[in-house]
């Protein structure tokens, strides 16, 4: 079973990196969002510094949802999903492996890019590290929660925009604790560990529960 999981993970990452506009699309979208913010907010460096971490988090949240709609749809359309259900891997495990591969190819580049893009928003060095840390802890939750939306819309031809609409409300807790952990690291007065542990808890919870919910949603699509 471990071998099959490794094989599936490798195939997913290979596909994401090989198909044009797959993995790097999220990072470029992130860059675009962050780049247009100073134009909208105006050249007020103090304001940018204050809201910078929040902008980075919102940008990462939106960029994580890029490509999620195709997570199961592509496999559903070409029959791969049918065959995957006939393997020894339970459907929830398949969902979890695909989500993990999606995070490595889409979420991880965002974590790495965030400190660099933070420089454009005049975010101070301590906050850059905090943003990267909280994104690393929080973006897996976004991806895993997103699998539920991706699974629900698997049979819809034009379900692309439906996934963010379904998923964004569910990601609000992650956003709240992600930004508050970042702010706590920079300005205090709260200890950073409090929101950060809740954030990590949300991630662990979604890693366990979201694949089960997504697998149930995928089973509905088989009728």
């Amino acid at each position: 079973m471990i071998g099959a999981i490794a094989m599936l993970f490798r195939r997913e990452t290979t596909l994401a990196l090989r198909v044009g506009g797959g993995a790097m699309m999220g990072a470029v979208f992130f860059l675009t969002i962050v780049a247009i913010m100073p134009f909208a907010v105006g050249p007020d460096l103090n304001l940018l510094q204050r809201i910078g971490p929040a902008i980075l988090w919102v940008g990462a949240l939106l960029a994580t949802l890029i490509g999620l709609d195709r997570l199961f749809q592509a496999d559903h359309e070409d029959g791969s999903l049918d065959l995957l259900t006939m393997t020894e891997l339970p459907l929830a495990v398949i969902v979890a492996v695909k989500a993990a591969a999606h995070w490595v190819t889409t979420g991880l580049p965002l974590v790495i890019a965030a400190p660099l893009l933070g420089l454009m928003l005049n975010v101070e060095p301590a906050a850059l590290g905090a943003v990267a840390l909280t994104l690393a802890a929080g973006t897996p939750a976004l991806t895993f929660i997103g699998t539920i939306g991706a699974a629900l819309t698997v049979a819809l031809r034009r379900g692309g925009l439906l996934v963010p609409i379904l998923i964004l409300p569910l990601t609000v807790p992650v956003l709240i604790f992600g930004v508050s952990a970042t702010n706590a690291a920079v300005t205090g007065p709260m200890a950073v560990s409090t929101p950060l542990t809740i954030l990590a808890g949300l991630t662990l919870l979604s890693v366990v529960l979201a694949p089960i919910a997504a697998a149930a949603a995928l089973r509905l699509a088989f009728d």
Partner: protein
Amino acid sequence: MKLTGRDLACIRGGRLVFEALDFRVDAGMLLQLRGRNGAGKSTLLRLIAGLARIAEGELALEGGAPDVPVKEHIHYVGHLDAIKPALSVVENLAFWARLLEGEEVAALAGRAAIDPPAALDAMGIGPLADFPAAILSAGQRRRLSLARLLVAARPVWLLDEPTTALDTDGQACLFAMVERHLSSGGLALIATHVDLPLPAATLTLGVRQPEPRPEVEPA
């Protein structure tokens, strides 16, 4: 090993596709499914593969590996070929070889699996192994999906119009594969519109006329 369906019924999208369907396939036996378009041949195969819900009746596989679900005994080759254009031909096949393999089930198949490059050679697309699957023609894609049958040994084969897009060579190759599979104790169900040059039992499905919708009086 024996696959039996008793009193099966299937409903898709609110339409009754078939009902009261009985069949039985023993080891070494080929059952061909005939019937007009829409008669439910593909649906029956998907039902057996666990890809559609059984509305009524029972489906049983006797003599399978204990504690292994029925669908892990089954190879299903349908209209969709599960080929990723971005991967090379051999990568596509190696992926399914690894995911579809299972030791207990392979022991029942009576025939060892062969490795992906050898399977590509057997299907006549060996020279294309390292090309991206995007360049394959329809017939070559079909050969690649049929190669799955060789790289993982499973005793039950469900083939949905497997001759589609295949040339005469390809069809001969397919029939030889099925013959070897049957002689080593496997069983197969093939939905087809062509005459198979193999001894086979036939199950004919009839088209059910959709019941007329009840008239609604205009208000």
